[in-house]
C-alpha cells in the first residue's frame, strides 16, 4: 500500500478491481464503509462475480477475468479523450514530458526488440533521450511526438469503449458510467483509491495490471494524497515483512538485489547502481545503495565483512537465471534436480499450480522438512487419501521430517501490515507439547551445520562459519536482539562527515534511522528500510499511542512504519508546486516557507524547496513513471494479452498466446488448453472466501462450520445448459486434473459476451484439502496452469479453462 488502511476513510471514490476487499480483508474494508458513510464516497466494484464487495457497492460492472489491462487502458484513454486529467500534477509529477529514445515502437501487441526464440525483449530502446547535460530531455509543452505523454496517448487510443466491451465483456454503458465516476477524480479536490490484491497479481501479466491502474492514478493526481494511492492488500500477516526482508530467490533485505553471474565483483555490481538523477536537483535516493548494502553485509558477516574483501561480496550466491522462484524449483524437482526442501509455515502442495506436478516433484526429493504449527497436505503428500490424494506410499522414497512450531499466540515480535506498519506483539499462551519457535529451529540448524563445517570442513564453509551469530543465547536469539540488529547500530563512533569533530553516533548505540548509514563499514543494519524501528528510544514498533492529530488517519505514534515512520509514501505529491495541499481540506503536509511540516513524515528532504525537488524521490527522474523504461520485461506500457488459456483469441494481436515474454517450461505447454478449445469451453477463476484463510482455517472447527465443503459457483444459465442442480455435485476438469464439488448456482455470475461469443464463468474457491476439520475436498490447484507472471512469476491462478458436468460426486474409495 502506498497509503494505509486508516487512510481509506479520506477517499471520495473507491475502486475495487483485481481484488475483493470485503471478502479477503473485511476489517480493512471497514474504512471503505467509513468513507461512504461520512464523506459520501462511492464504491465501484469491477469483477467477474458480483461478490461480497459488490454487495455494498454503489456501482458494479462485470469483467472477464484476465482482461483488466484493456479496461484500464480504456479508462486512461477515456480520461485523455475527455480531458479528465489533473494537468498540473501530470505535468509536474510524472514523466509525461520526458522524450523517449528514437527507435522505440509498439506494433500489434509487441514493442521494439522482441525475440520470439528467447521469449524476451532487447530493451535498449525503452529509454529516455539523454541530453548533452547528462539529463533526460523533456518537453514541457507535451507536444513532441516522442514525449511520454504522446506515446501514451497513442498507445491507449485503440482501447475505445467498444473495444473494452469486446474484450472484457463489460457493457459499454457500464464502462462509460464508471469512466465518468473515475474521471471526476481528476479534480485536485477529489481522490480515488485503488484497492487490489491477487485478482491482479495472479495473471501472466499481473505486474502490468497494477501498472495500468498506477498510471491512471498518476494522471488523476491521486498518488501521494490522502484517500488516494495504489493499495495492494497483502494476503498474509507478514508477507509484506518477508518481502521487505528479501526472503526471495533474488533479493537482499530492503529491496537490494542479489548479484548475478554477470557481476563477478562488488565494483561491477555497484557500477549499475549509481542511480544518478535523471533531472536536476532530484534526490534519487537509491544513490545511497552502497550504504544500505555495506551495512547489511556488516550485519550479516560482522568482522568477516571488510573493505578489503569487498564486504564479503563473494559470500553471496550469484544467480545464473533471473529467479529460482517456486515454479522453477518444482520444475527442477520434477526433473530430479532437487534433493532437499524446507517448508516453513508453507503448504506448496496446495499453494502452487498443477498439483499433480507438485506431487510428482515432492516424490523425487530425498528429504522434505516441514516446520509448521499445523498439519499440512505438503507434509502428508505421500499419504493415500483415496480420490482426494491417490498415492502409493511404498513407492515414495522421500523422507519427511515434520517439526512442530509455535504460532502467533505463543511468540513475540513484529509483523509488517499492508500499510507498512511494523507492529510488535506479545505472547499469550504456552506452546502445545514440544512445539518450538522457528527462530530456535533455525538457530539449531545453523549451529549444527556450523559445527559440522568447523569440524570437517567442506564446500566453502566461510559464509556459514563466519555468519554473525553473536546472540546472548546462540541457541535462541531473542526477538529483541534480532529487531535491534535489523534496525542497525554504530559499530564504532561515527562522526559528521562535514565536521569530523562532531560525534553523531556512539559505538554500540542503535541507529536513529537509515539517514545515518555509512558505506565504510562503520554501521550495520540488517534491513535498511526498517531502520528506526528500535532506536535508542526503545522499541518503536511497540508504541501504542493511538492519537491522531487532525483526524488524518496517520497515527504516527502507533507502531512504526517503514520508511522512516512515513504513513503515506510520495506524500510530497499531495501538494502543488508551491507546496500547498491540492485539497486544503485534506492537508497532509505543506511547505511552510522553510521546511515541510504536517501530519505525516514528509517523503522528501525536509528543506527541499517545492519547485526544485520532485516527489518521487526513489526514482532518478524525481517523478512518477507513465513510461517505465526497461524496468519491466513485458513492456514500458501495459498491453492487453489474453491468459495462456483463453476462451477467445487476442483481439488486438490474434497470434500472441498469453504474455509473449512469460516463462513457460517445455512440458507445461502441452498441458495448456488451446485458445477457444471446445473441450474446455468455460473461463475459470479461483478465489478465497471470507470464512476461510487459505488452507489454514480448514483446521479450525468454527470456520469449517461457516463454510464446510468445497463448491464451485456458476450462473443459472450454465446450470440450465448443463443440467446442474443447486447444491448438486459437479465435476470440473482442466488439462491438468479434475475435482468434484457442490454447485452454488447463482445470479451473481452472468454469462458474458466476448468478441461476439458467449463465455461462461466458473468460480472455484481454493480452500479445501485432505487434512483438517472441514470436509475433505479438492484444492483448486488440481486445475490451474503452471505458468507465472513475466516479471515476478506469480502463477496465473485467476484465468484458465475448464469443463464442467453434473456428477454423482466423488466415488468413495
Amino acid at each position: 500500500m502506498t497509503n494505509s488502511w486508516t487512510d481509506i476513510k479520506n477517499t471520495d471514490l473507491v475502486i475495487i478491481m483485481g481484488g475483493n476487499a470485503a471478502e479477503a480483508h473485511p476489517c480493512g474494508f471497514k474504512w471503505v464503509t467509513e468513507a461512504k458513510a461520512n464523506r459520501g464516497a462511492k464504491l465501484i466494484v469491477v469483477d467477474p462475480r458480483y461478490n461480497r464487495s459488490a454487495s455494498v457497492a454503489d456501482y458494479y460492472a462485470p469483467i472477464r477475468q484476465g482482461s483488466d489491462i484493456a479496461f484500464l487502458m480504456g479508462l486512461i484513454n477515456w480520461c485523455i479523450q475527455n480531458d479528465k486529467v489533473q494537468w498540473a500534477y501530470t505535468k509536474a509529477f510524472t514523466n509525461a514530458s520526458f522524450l523517449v529514445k528514437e527507435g522505440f515502437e509498439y506494433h500489434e501487441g509487441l514493442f521494439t526488440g522482441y525475440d520470439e526464440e528467447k521469449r524476451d525483449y532487447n530493451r535498449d530502446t525503452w529509454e529516455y533521450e539523454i541530453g548533452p547535460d547528462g539529463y533526460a530531455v523533456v518537453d514541457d509543452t507535451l507536444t513532441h511526438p516522442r514525449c511520454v505523454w504522446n506515446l501514451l496517448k497513442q498507445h491507449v487510443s485503440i482501447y475505445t469503449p467498444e473495444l473494452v466491451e469486446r474484450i472484457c465483456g463489460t457493457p459499454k454503458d457500464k464502462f462509460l458510467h464508471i469512466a465518468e465516476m473515475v474521471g471526476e477524480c481528476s479534480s485536485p479536490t477529489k481522490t480515488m483509491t485503488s484497492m487490489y490484491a491477487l485478482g491482479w497479481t495472479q495473471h501472466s501479466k499481473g505486474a502490468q495490471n497494477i501498472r495500468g491502474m498506477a498510471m491512471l492514478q498518476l494522471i488523476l493526481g491521486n498518488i501521494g494524497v490522502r484517500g488516494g494511492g495504489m493499495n495492494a492488500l497483502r494476503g498474509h500477516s507478514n508477507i509484506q515483512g518477508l518481502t521487505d526482508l528479501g526472503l526471495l530467490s533474488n533479493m537482499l533485505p530492503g529491496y537490494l538485489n542479489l548479484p548475478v553471474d554477470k557481476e563477478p565483483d562488488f565494483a561491477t555490481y555497484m557500477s549499475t547502481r549509481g542511480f544518478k538523477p535523471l533531472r536536476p536537483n532530484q534526490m534519487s535516493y537509491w544513490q545511497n545503495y552502497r550504504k544500505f548494502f555495506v551495512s547489511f553485509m556488516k550485519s550479516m558477516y560482522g568482522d568477516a565483512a571488510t573493505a578489503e574483501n569487498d564486504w564479503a561480496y563473494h559470500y553471496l550466491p550469484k544467480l545464473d537465471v533471473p529467479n529460482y522462484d517456486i515454479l522453477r524449483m518444482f520444475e527442477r524437482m520434477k526433473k530430479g534436480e532437487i534433493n532437499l526442501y524446507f517448508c516453513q509455515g508453507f503448504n506448496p502442495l496446495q499453494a502452487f499450480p498443477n498439483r499433480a506436478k507438485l506431487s510428482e516433484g515432492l516424490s523425487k526429493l530425498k528429504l522434505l522438512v516441514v516446520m509448521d504449527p499445523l498439519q499440512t497436505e505438503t507434509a502428508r503428500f505421500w499419504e493415500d487419501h483415496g480420490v482426494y490424494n491417490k498415492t502409493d506410499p511404498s513407492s515414495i522414497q522421500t523422507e519427511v521430517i515434520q517439526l512442530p512450531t509455535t504460532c502467533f499466540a505463543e511468540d513475540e515480535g513484529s509483523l509488517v501490515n499492508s500499510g507498512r506498519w511494523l507492529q510488535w506483539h506479545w505472547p499469550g499462551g504456552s506452546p502445545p507439547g514440544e512445539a518450538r519457535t522457528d527462530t530456535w529451529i533455525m538457530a539449531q540448524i545453523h549451529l549444527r551445520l556450523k559445527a559440522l563445517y568447523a569440524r570437517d570442513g567442506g564446500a566453502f564453509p566461510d559464509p556459514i562459519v563466519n555468519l554473525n551469530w553473536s546472540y546472548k543465547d546462540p541457541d535462541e536469539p531473542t526477538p529483541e536482539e534480532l529487531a535491534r540488529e535489523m534496525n542497525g547500530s554504530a559499530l564504532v563512533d561515527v562522526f559528521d562527515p562535514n565536521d569530523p569533530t562532531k560525534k553523531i553516533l556512539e559505538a554500540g548505540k542503535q541507529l536513529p534511522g537509515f539517514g545515518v548509514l555509512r558505506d565504510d563499514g562503520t554501521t550495520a543494519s540488517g534491513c535498511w528500510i526498517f531502520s528506526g524501528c528500535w532506536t535508542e528510544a526503545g522499541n518503536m514498533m511497540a508504541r501504542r499511542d493511538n492519537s491522531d492529530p487532525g483526524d488524518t488517519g496517520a497515527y504516527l505514534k502507533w507502531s512504526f512504519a517503514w520508511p522512516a515512520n512515513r504513513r503515506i509514501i510520495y506524500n510530497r505529491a499531495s501538494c502543488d508546486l508551491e507546496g500547498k495541499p491540492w485539497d486544503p481540506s485534506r492537508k497532509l503536509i505543506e511547505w511552510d516557507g522553510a521546511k515541510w511540516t504536517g501530519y505525516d513524515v514528509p517523503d522528501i528532504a525536509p528543506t527541499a524547496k517545492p519547485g526544485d525537488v520532485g516527489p518521487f524521490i526513489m526514482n532518478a527522474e524525481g517523478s512518477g513513471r507513465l513510461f517505465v523504461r526497461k524496468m519491466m520485461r513485458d513492456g514500458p506500457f501495459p498491453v492487453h494479452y489474453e491468459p495462456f488459456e483463453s476462451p477467445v483469441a487476442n483481439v488486438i494481436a490474434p497470434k500472441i498466446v498469453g504474455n509473449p515474454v512469460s516463462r513457460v517450461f517445455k512440458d507445461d505447454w502441452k498441458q495448456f488448453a488451446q485458445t477457444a478449445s471446445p473441450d474446455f469451453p468455460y473461463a475459470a477463476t479461483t478465489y478465497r472466501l471470507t470464512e476461510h484463510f487459505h488452507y489454514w482455517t480448514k483446521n479450525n472447527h468454527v470456520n469449517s462450520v461457516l463454510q464446510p465443503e468445497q463448491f464451485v459457483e456458476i450462473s443459472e444459465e450454465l446450470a440450465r445448459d448443463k443440467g446442474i442442480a443447486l447444491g448438486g455435485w459437479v465435476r470440473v476438469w482442466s488439462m491438468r486434473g479434475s475435482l468434484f464439488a457442490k454447485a452454488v448456482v447463482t445470479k451473481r455470475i452472468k454469462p458474458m459476451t466476448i468478441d461476439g461469443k458467449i463465455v461462461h464463468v466458473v468460480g472455484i474457491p481454493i480452500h479445501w484439502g485432505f487434512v483438517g476439520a472441514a470436509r475433505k475436498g479438492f484444492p483448486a490447484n488440481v486445475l490451474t496452469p503452471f505458468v507465472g507472471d513475466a516479471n515476478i512469476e506469480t502463477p496465473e491462478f485467476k484465468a484458465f479453462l475448464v469443463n464442467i458436468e453434473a456428477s454423482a460426486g466423488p466415488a468413495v474409495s
Partner: protein
Amino acid sequence: MFPPIPNPSVSPEAAKPRFGEKDILRRSASEVTPPAERLTEVAKLIDVSKCIGCKACQSACLEWNNLHEEIGFNHGVYTNPMDLTPDTFTLMRFTEWVNPETDNLEWLIRKDGCMHCEDPGCLKACPSPGAIVQYSNGIVDFQHENCIGCGYCIKGCPFNIPRISKVDHTAYKCTLCSDRVAVGQGPACQKACPTQAIVFGTKQEMKDWADFRIKDLKSRGFENAGLYDPQGVGGTHVMYVLHHADQPSIYANLPDNPRISPIVDAWKGVTKYVGLAAMGFAAAAGLLHYVVAGPNRVTAEDEENAQKLTEGKGPPSAPPPASPSGPAGHEGRAT
C-alpha cells in the same frame, strides 16, 4: 464511525454484573413487580446496507458463547448452517434479489437472530416460571435451569428464533450477550463486526444512528430506506436499517408486520381463562347437583324387579310409554 466500546477489563471488580434479578421487567409464567425505575433501554442496530455477509458475527458468537456447531454440508448457497440451531444463535441469511425497478441484482444479507422484543412472544408463551426473563433494559434472556424444553417459546416467537437443544433439552437463542452487556461491553457479534454493520448502545442512540444511516442511503437513491423497529411487538431491542424498509420480507422472510400470533394470544389468553372456568364450572355443577339432587341410588324395588326378571317369575312391567315408537333401528334388529 460509531465510537467503539472500550476493551473489557479483566479485574474481578469490573466483572460484577451491573444488572440482574432486581431489574427484571417480565418473568415467564410469573407475576413480578416491575422495578420502580426502568434501566435505560439498550439496542443492537443491524445495518443491512453495510453488511458484507462475512459471518464474523456468527464466528464471534460461537466463540464467546463456547458453542459447538456441527460441520455441515454445502447446499448450494452461502448460508451455513442452513438455519438457526441451539448452537447457532445468529445466522447470515443470503438472498439474491433482482430489484424490479432497476433490474439490478442486489445481494441482501441479513443477520438473523433474536430481536429482543419489547413484548416478547416467547416469554408470553413460556409455561415455566422464570425460564424467560426480560430485563428492564430490554434484554430477553433464557434461564436454562428453569427451562423445561417444551418449545412453547418457538410457537410464541413471531420471528422463529428459539431452538431446543437435543443435548440438554432446553431452549437456546441469542442472549444479547447479557454477560457482556452486564459489565458494560457490547455483544460479541457487535464487537467483531468489521464494517460496523452492527452497533450497540442505548435504544435512543441506535435510533439516532439509524437516522444518520438512512439519510446516507436516501442520498444514494434508496428512497425507501428505513428503520425496522416493529411496533407489533412493541418495538425491538435488535433493529435493522433496511434499504428497502417498505418490504422487509425480501430480506429472507423478515416479517413485514410481526406480532405475537393471535392464535398464541388466544391460547395464552382467553383459552386459559375460559378453559379453567369451564373445568371449574363442570366440577362445581356436579357438586351442586349432588348436593341438591342427592345420589341416584338403586332401590330395593329395583333389585326385586331384577330378581323377578331373572327368575322368570312374571314379567316386570313393560317398557314405559316413553318409548312410543316401539321396536325400531338397532333395537328392532335386536328383538
